[in-house]
């Protein structure tokens, strides 16, 4: 079945027990993202330093793809430099609209499970919701050399 390819064990696991799920009291930025046409909602909170995404957590609800993507993203991005985080978000969104046969970059690691979403164009926005929130968070709070600001 096609859909077992889409809903691999890793995705099911992260959608049922999302990691880094919950509030982040010392967040420096919180961004709410939604897919208006289907009702998915993700609220992403991150603690950013001038250079680094120190930590990030999320709340919200959505389909398995959306939840698993947010969960795996938080693991992947935590501790990355802001530049790396932005590049990864861009690469992830880009990967989802490449042809099925295109190879997925090594650096993706576990994120590769989402490559099957390419066969389900209607689900791309589910997989990218948390990543769009991340990009907005990064753009909202200026990076170094400007000092960190509070923002909600």
């Amino acid at each position, binding site marked *: 079945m096609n859909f077992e390819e889409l*809903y691999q064990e890793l995705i099911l696991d992260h959608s049922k027990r999302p990691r880094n799920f919950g509030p982040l009291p010392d967040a420096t930025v919180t961004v709410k993202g939604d897919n208006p046409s*289907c009702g998915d909602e993700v609220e992403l909170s991150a603690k950013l330093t001038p250079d680094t995404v120190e930590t990030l957590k999320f709340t919200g609800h959505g389909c398995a793809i959306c939840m698993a993507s947010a969960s795996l993203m938080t693991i992947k991005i935590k501790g990355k430099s802001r530049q790396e985080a932005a590049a990864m978000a861009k690469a992830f969104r880009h990967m989802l609209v490449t042809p099925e046969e295109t190879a997925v970059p090594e650096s993706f690691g576990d994120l590769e499970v989402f490559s099957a979403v390419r066969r389900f164009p209607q689900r791309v926005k589910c997989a990218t919701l948390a990543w769009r929130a991340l990009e907005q968070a990064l753009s909202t709070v200026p990076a170094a050399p400007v000092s960190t600001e509070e923002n909600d």
Partner: protein
Amino acid sequence: MPSTNSWLSIRQDFPILDQQVNGHPLIYLDNAATAQKPRAVLDCLDHYYERDNSNVHRGLHELSNRATTAYEGARERLAAYIGAEAGEIIFTRGTTESINLVARTWGDAHVGEGDIILLTEMEHHSNLVPWQLLAKRKGASLRFVPVTPDGLLDLSNIDELLAGPVKIFSFVHISNSLGTINPAAELCARARLAGVTTLVDAAQSSGHLPLDVRELGCDFLAFSGHKMCGPTGIGILWGRKDILAAMEPFHGGGEMIASVGFTESEFKPAPYRFEAGTPAIAQAIGLGAAAEYIDGIGRAAIFDHDQALARQAVDLLEEIPGLRILGPRHDRGGLVAFVLKDAHAHDIVSMADQYGLALRGGHHCTQPLLRKLGVPASARASFYFYNTPEEVEQMAAIVRKIQTFFA
């Protein structure tokens, strides 16, 4: 009522149903979103474009005459379809435009500061947002008939809700996300006693049960062609003759004018006053053919058929662990929406699609209702007369597989 055999032969009228999707025969259960088109309607469109296509009304040549006769004939057929007069039938793009037309013309003239627009908590966005916009323009406010936890209108206070400066009561006949059939005639009667104008959103009922505007006793009725086997891009606004006669135009343009000067114009009477510009000619004619086709089967029979499928679906789905059905258990229109404890609606629908099963998942354009019911999204199976008990069985079996997979 057609026999099982004739239902199956009716199904042959729909070319689209005969296809494989993802390696399985298509099971199309997304009829509340849009219905499929029988050969009779497609042939009617082809005939129009291949023989008669011309602009209407102002033409004196043969093709224009044929097009005008067919277009006005469709108006008459639609009038007969709902027990109305031809002069009361306005062609629009669909339910949404019909309701916006009323909100803009009747609404702007009759709703003022401090007035109240009465809706229900189960309205489709198309019967909610136009009134929000009107309320904002005019300083009016909205009031809602509440929905009970089992998806019925709570009518215990209906007379109080209708009291005060309530100008219009606009409500859905059959809910597209609960399946609830509202007691439209009774609601209109109560509203009339209170001196309140009524609009019935018949998007989900016009192709599914017999409708007669005089029996309903409403003032406006709105529906879409595409949900009743007609083409996309066409719908109906029916309005009571005396109300239409007093209404200002909607759009300005060709066809709706009696006489135009550089700075002032006079307008034709209804329905032309409300049909500015070249209308959706082929689509209106196609909708006439759809109404004829549906009445050839019989709306009472269709209603029974759809209800039987819905009953069967409720019975089968209820057995699935962690599945909750939204809306009333029985006495529902031909649709069933549900949520699974273990799987999100999108995942259900995506997986169902892998089996060739077309369901719809999401808020079904009733966000506030779903929020109130505490459900972010639901999956919905909606039936029409070409669906079969076997399809309902397969649907339930697929949903069960999905539940098992995610459990």
